């Protein structure tokens, strides 16, 4: 166990980072939880009283049930398309392409993820708007087609969010696919399994942890997104995130916004609690 000198070293090395995180993350989250039980915004000078009203509002007002449902639906769409598009890319990079090409292509896939999210969402307006790239391309192929304006539509929001979060899915699937030993696949093949069977029975189940990690990393921020639906969806594709942002920046109803935030976190945790045993059973079956 650590002696006094070591203890001092440990304390002085970790204290700055963790004090910082306490002041900027953990105490604020606690403050927000407290705020969610107040009956009026801290901006109002008169003293506030503790209440469950904000949580009751979430459960009783139909608008929040709809918002929650739409958010979950949007999260499911985006996660599904990220998996559909991203998994084959991860598979190609992990199992098919080797050497310098793999390194270069991998970097190209990850690079946009580390560049500005807002700017990337903005760039889609250039493609989707009336007279944008997509419109022009379609009219170049079929001059008689009606004008295409996808901007400010639900598909635009889905496309933009898939573009934003796709690298997450590729990264997590790549890591778990990379970890699968080629000899396992060869063993299955030598025992007479066909390529599709090998994929369905061996490769995909073994890569499931990566799929789940990717899905969680995408689903959670999509539910909380507000900038993407605002820019690409206009009034279409309303999310819980947009409503929370509104409570803080427009209507200044902080307690309601705080309560909605915690309900959002609760829903995510609930989904994890439901999903975890299912996934565990799947992966346990492999052992």
């Amino acid at each position, binding site marked *: 166990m*650590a002696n006094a000198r*070591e203890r001092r070293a*440990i304390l002085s*090395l*970790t204290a*700055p*980072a*963790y004090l*910082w995180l306490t002041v*900027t*993350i*953990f105490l*604020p*989250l606690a403050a*927000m939880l407290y*705020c969610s039980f107040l009956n009026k915004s801290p901006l109002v000078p008169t003293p506030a009283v503790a209440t469950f009203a904000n949580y009751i509002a979430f459960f009783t007002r139909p608008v929040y049930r709809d918002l929650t449902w739409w958010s979950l639906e949007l999260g499911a769409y985006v996660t599904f398309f990220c998996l559909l598009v*991203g998994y*084959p890319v991860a598979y*190609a*990079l992990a*199992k*098919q392409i080797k050497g310098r090409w793999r*390194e270069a292509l991998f970097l190209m896939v*990850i*690079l946009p993820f*580390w*560049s*500005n*999210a*807002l*700017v*990337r969402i*903005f*760039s*889609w*307006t*250039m*493609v989707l708007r009336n007279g944008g*790239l997509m419109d*022009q391309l379609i009219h170049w192929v079929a001059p008689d087609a009606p004008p295409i304006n996808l901007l400010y539509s639900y598909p635009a929001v889905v496309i933009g969010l898939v*573009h934003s979060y*796709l*690298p997450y899915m590729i*990264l997590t699937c*790549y890591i778990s696919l990379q970890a699968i030993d080629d000899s396992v*696949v*060869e063993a299955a*093949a030598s025992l007479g399994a066909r390529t599709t069977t090998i994929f369905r029975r061996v490769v995909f189940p073994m890569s499931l942890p990566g799929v789940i990690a990717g899905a969680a990393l995408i689903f959670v*921020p999509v*539910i*909380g997104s507000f*900038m993407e639906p605002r*820019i690409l969806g206009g009034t279409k594709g309303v999310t819980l*995130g947009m409503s*929370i*942002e509104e409570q803080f*920046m427009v209507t200044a109803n*902080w307690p309601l916004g705080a309560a909605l935030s915690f309900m*959002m*976190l609760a829903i995510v945790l609930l989904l994890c609690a439901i999903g975890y045993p299912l996934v565990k059973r799947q992966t346990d079956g492999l052992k």
Partner: protein
Amino acid sequence: MSTREKGMGIGGLVLRLHLGLVLLFLYVPIIVMAVLSFNQSQLYELPFTFDLVWYKSLASNDRLIDAGINSLVIALINTVVATAFGTMAALAFARYQFRGKSLLQLLLFPPITIPWLVIGTAMLVFFFWTGIGRGLHAILLGHVALSLPYVIIVVGARLANFPRMMEEAAATLGATPWQTFRRVTAPILAPGVVAAALFAFAVSFDQFVISYFLAPPGVTTLPVAIYAAIRKGFTPEINAISTIIIVVSMGIMLITARFYRFGGER
């Protein structure tokens, strides 16, 4: 071997084609945006006529320039603070066994996994109550908090493969602890620290959500200013500043990649 050979068949070709299409999907919008920033027409009309008019008008847009300077200054301070504190914590985790270590490591995940929207609004509430308030200092506080976990994880990964023997050898040969740190530990640690610093810079320079909630009226960072401009209506000027940002942040990540291999490739 057999799997690799099979991969070159039709399935392999389809996968490669798919990969190409995905790269197009990822890059075409960015390229279109960049190209249009050099187009003369204000309404994004074709034919394309090369012109630097939007970059020139950007040069006289004080609001965006001020926001850009704010973003750069915050990102630089954030990089120094987060890298220093994060590296210290990573060193403690790598060197010492102590009670509560796994709890401290676990505490790095909430800042990464809780949506920025929730963290940003929580900061807004807490900073209001404590009198820290909104402003560039609050934005800096928030950015460092988001960068710290990344720094600790990236430097920690480098330290995990650290040859402890070299330090012990230096000590045996009579080096003082400071000499050992400066001549042995620091050079080995350097690539990890540089990569972490670049990550921290990118996290701050690209951060929109936290800054959005902590920016008081009239004081902005670049992403917040761009968001406000987009909401008012697009102009090629936004394309110009966006193109600059994309080039800067992609450039930083390309440099980072030189120091830090992504994706577990050896």
